[in-house]
């Protein structure tokens, strides 16, 4: 049953991810990204990481995709005419694709990762308590740093999007 669910979610996620890349319309791309993220959240639930699944849906699907949609509608910059790819682009992409495919195949062939306990391992990520214990003891400093980073990002966005009179350079 869980194998069937995994296969369904995997196909759904990768299909929606391909939709992000292949769609010409940016709005449709953003909506495909939303569906793909929901698929990943489903996979997180299968991996017993319930908190992370909820956070993924809240932060990514809620905030990030909404922001993307907002900006796409605001700028209203739909592709226009599409130019042909250059030869160098095609060669580089196919080379990169070949390397990635090789990497995936070698992973499939001999991925004997050491010390894997398998599904028999206790689902330690299932409870909120385990996150809280780690975040407020071992990872207290990173939490503070991330808080500071968010503050900096907020200030940066304000500086970037506000027009300050008399501070324009040049003209």
């Amino acid at each position, binding site marked *: 049953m869980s194998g069937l669910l995994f296969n369904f979610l995997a196909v759904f996620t990768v299909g929606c991810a391909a939709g992000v890349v292949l769609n010409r319309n940016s709005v449709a791309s953003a909506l495909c990204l939303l569906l793909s993220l929901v698929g990943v959240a489903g996979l997180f639930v299968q*991996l017993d990481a319930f908190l992370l699944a909820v956070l*993924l849906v809240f932060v*990514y699907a809620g905030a990030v995709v909404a922001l*993307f949609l907002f900006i796409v509608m605001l700028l209203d910059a739909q592709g226009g005419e599409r*130019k042909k790819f250059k030869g160098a682009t095609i060669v580089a992409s196919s080379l990169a694709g070949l390397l990635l*495919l090789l*990497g995936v195949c070698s992973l499939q062939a001999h991925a004997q990762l050491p010390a894997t306990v*398998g599904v028999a391992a206790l689902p330690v*990520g299932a409870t909120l308590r385990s996150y809280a214990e780690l*975040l407020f003891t071992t990872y207290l400093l990173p939490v503070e740093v991330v808080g500071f980073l968010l503050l900096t990002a907020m200030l940066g966005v304000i500086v970037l999007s506000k027009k300050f009179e008399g501070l324009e350079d040049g003209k």
Partner: protein
Amino acid sequence: MSPPSLTSYLVLSAVLFAVGFFGVLLRKNTLVIYMCLELMLVASTLALVACSRFNGTMDGNVFVFFILTVAAAEVAVGLAIVVALFRKRQTIQVEELNHLRD
């Protein structure tokens, strides 16, 4: 059907990463490139959560927690830059944003 192994999760994450990578290479719209970058980030988080689950540790999960936070900040700043760029140049197609090259 047997439950999925760690390898299948890692392969899925690699495929997802590859799809995002192709999007970054092939698309010309800055916003879509940004979405593909997010896709790559999510693929890496999937690998972290899977490794964490199959090894019975918490470190990967906590790391994903931080990645989510940093990604949110990154999207906010990046989209603000895109909007500022659009204000200045009236375009967000990458092949038209080549003034540093010329």
